[in-house]
């Protein structure tokens, strides 16, 4: 029996169209748009000005506080303007526009660097490297990594979990990275284990990626401390709490963090970024993005410079097909629909999904028939139908009492509802109000 989390979950159509497509290098764009809010927390502070010449990897916006991150320019060139542009959130955000200097055009040569196994850097310096390199969680949550790694002395983390689950349908960025950079990922894990004095690490991978399980097992065979766990395919297993439960059978307490149960979780993409930052001093300026969709001709995976407009990516796979009605930044379960393709790729962009007419429209909501499916599939043990009802009626105190804030917004309830009720929409809305009320109270 493969391991998985015990309560709830769904199994949507996998549609991993691009799982056999090797990661291609996306041409460096002529102009990059680098937003200063690419992570959860305080936006970074811009430290360049118009007409400034910048070198590749130079810091252009520095961390705005502890829960924040440095942002580096992915290209060498000239800052043309500091502008407000619509980013993936749908809001206008401050952004640094940089025109690429054609002569100094970098071509992802860091991806070709040989494997560097020996860890020569001091333990303390490892964390400093990670902080300076602007590394954030690349699974999609974009939480600054150095915050997760800043362990208080009283915390006893005994196991590092590496998230290679990629439970979102369509996305294959992590899958490809695991296949192509397995050795580097193992070194990345060793770096973290060394820095944090952890003696056990488990890489969790869903069993629809048997090749990745095999490759990583082979890469890790010399290090007995690193294990690879094949997991049953079930969404949302890539959620931190569900993954910890599946692998360690430990349950992160309500409102708590993985540290509270002696573990920390990092995505494989993040681990690879850490490897590059520590071994080659490479800041986080490029990432793997899956560009996919049922009607996309040349759907594939790409190494992309942060700040590349999504339209460049779409052009690379053959343009938007006829009848495109929705473009999603991320996977179909948790990704955000974007208004147009001018939006740039950010640190959190794991995929671009193009959806056509027949799947883009939601059906009209009907009466709840109390079938209980939403309750059965909720991985957090909540009652989505009740939470929607309470949010709709404005009974936020009750909603808070019914644990609305523990919702992880995985969308399983909306996915499964036979009456097509917008359960998660209302729950999200309710959460935002409850959050405001809680801040007002304190």
């Amino acid at each position: 029996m493969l391991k998985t989390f015990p309560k709830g979950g769904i199994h949507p159509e996998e549609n991993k169209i691009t799982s056999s497509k090797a990661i291609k290098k996306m041409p460096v764009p002529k102009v990059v748009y680098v937003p200063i809010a690419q992570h959860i927390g305080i936006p970074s502070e811009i430290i360049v000005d118009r007409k400034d010449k910048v070198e590749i990897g130079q810091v252009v916006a520095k961390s705005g506080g502890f829960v924040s991150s440095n942002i580096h320019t992915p290209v060498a060139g000239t800052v043309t303007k500091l502008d407000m542009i619509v980013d993936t959130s749908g809001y206008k955000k401050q952004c640094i526009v940089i025109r690429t200097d054609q002569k100094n055009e970098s071509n992802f040569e860091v991806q070709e660097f040989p494997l560097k196994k020996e860890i020569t850097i001091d333990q303390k310096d490892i964390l400093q490297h990670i902080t300076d390199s602007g590394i954030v969680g690349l699974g999609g949550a974009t939480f600054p990594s150095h915050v997760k790694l800043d362990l208080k002395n009283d915390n006893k983390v005994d196991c590092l979990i590496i998230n290679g689950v990629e439970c979102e349908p369509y996305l294959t960025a992590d899958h490809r990275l695991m296949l192509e950079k397995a050795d580097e990922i193992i070194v990345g894990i060793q770096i973290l284990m060394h820095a944090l004095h952890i003696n056990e690490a488990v890489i969790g991978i869903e069993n629809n990626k048997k090749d990745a399980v095999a490759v990583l097992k082979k890469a890790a065979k010399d290090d007995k401390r690193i294990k690879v766990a094949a997991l049953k395919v079930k969404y949302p297993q890539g959620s931190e709490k569900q993954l910890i439960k599946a692998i360690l059978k430990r349950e992160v307490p309500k409102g708590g963090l993985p540290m509270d149960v002696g573990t920390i979780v990092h995505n494989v993409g993040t681990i690879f970024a850490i490897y590059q930052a520590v071994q080659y001093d490479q800041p986080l300026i490029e990432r793997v993005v899956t560009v996919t969709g049922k009607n996309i001709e040349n759907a594939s995976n790409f190494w992309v410079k942060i700040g590349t407009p999504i339209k460049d990516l779409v052009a690379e796979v053959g343009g938007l097909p006829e009848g495109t009605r929705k473009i999603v930044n991320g996977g179909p379960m948790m990704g955000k629909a974007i208004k147009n393709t001018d939006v740039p790729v950010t640190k959190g962009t794991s995929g671009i999904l193009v959806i056509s007419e027949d799947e883009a429209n939601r059906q009209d909501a009907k009466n709840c028939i109390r079938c209980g499916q939403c309750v059965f599939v909720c991985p957090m043990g909540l009652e989505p139908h009740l939470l929607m009802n309470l949010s709709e009626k404005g009974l936020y105190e009750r909603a808070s009492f019914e644990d609305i804030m523990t919702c992880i917004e995985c969308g399983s309830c909306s996915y499964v509802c036979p009456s097509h009720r917008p359960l998660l929409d209302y729950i999200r809305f309710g959460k935002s109000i409850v959050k405001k009320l809680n801040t007002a109270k304190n």
Partner: protein
Amino acid sequence: MADPIIISASPHVHSARTSKKVMYDVLYALIPAFLVSIYVFGIRALILTSVAVISCIVFEYIIQKYLLKTEITITDGSALITGILLAFNLPTNLPIWMIIVGALIAIGVAKLSFGGLGYNIFNPALVGRVFLLVCFPVQMTSWPTAIENNLTLDAITGETTLGIIKEGLMYGETMSTISEKIPSAMELLLGITSGSAGEMSALALLLGGVFLIVRKVITWHIPVTIIVTMAIMTGVFWLVNPEMYASPLIHILSGGAILGAFYMATDLVTSPMTKKGMVIFSIGIAIITVVIRLFGAYPEGVSFAILIMNAFVPLIDKYFKPRRFGNQIKSKIM
């Protein structure tokens, strides 16, 4: 780009499961029992079911169009199912106008006056049946006997298995003498007995019930808990005094036990939404059913038991919640 791009919140995919599909699954599940009913009762079963279904749909249409002036929902399949389930709970020789009255009560009172699909507290088909049972006890308890002359409209009326047992025990007979008059367990399983239209063959009903579980329309919790609890309770009485109480097998295979456990109690709208709640609900139904059967005035009690427990569903949903993830430790933030 000609067509506008749609912006909506996640998730962007759906399971393609719809209420309609759920309703039609229930419909398919009822086909075997319906075929047995036609085989046993002939044309009367067909007439009864058609009248009940058509009346339910027509009443829903009229009430929504002219009385409530709301959206017409007759195509969602729920009125159709209420009609079939109502018919399955009635004797086949019931006068046609009574069937129509039953449909009016089921749709008009039990369903639409509560707010329509999803808002009704009590199972509409059962409210219709119990209304008829209370108003017209004679017609509602004279059942045609199986098989003979199944194409004529006047059937010979006989009593149900549970009716024979109740009456026999009342006149001081013992189970060993009664058992010669009632159908064997095999006959009950196949449906060679007398009773309401749809409660004939336990086997046909089980077949449909398994289909519903496989299709994930219902979970096993309600039917299995009802049957197991009934078996334990009647089993205890039977072991204490087999001359005074019928065996658990007879109790489960006769009357509306299987129909009730798989199709009536599991009605999505009127049953609890959590698995814990379903078990409590089902234990309640089984206990009330057995108490009515053994000690009450009526030979059969499944309908009453389900309706009584329907009333407890909001309370059950309030107190039997799923276990919240990570709730064993006091919250830090909230």
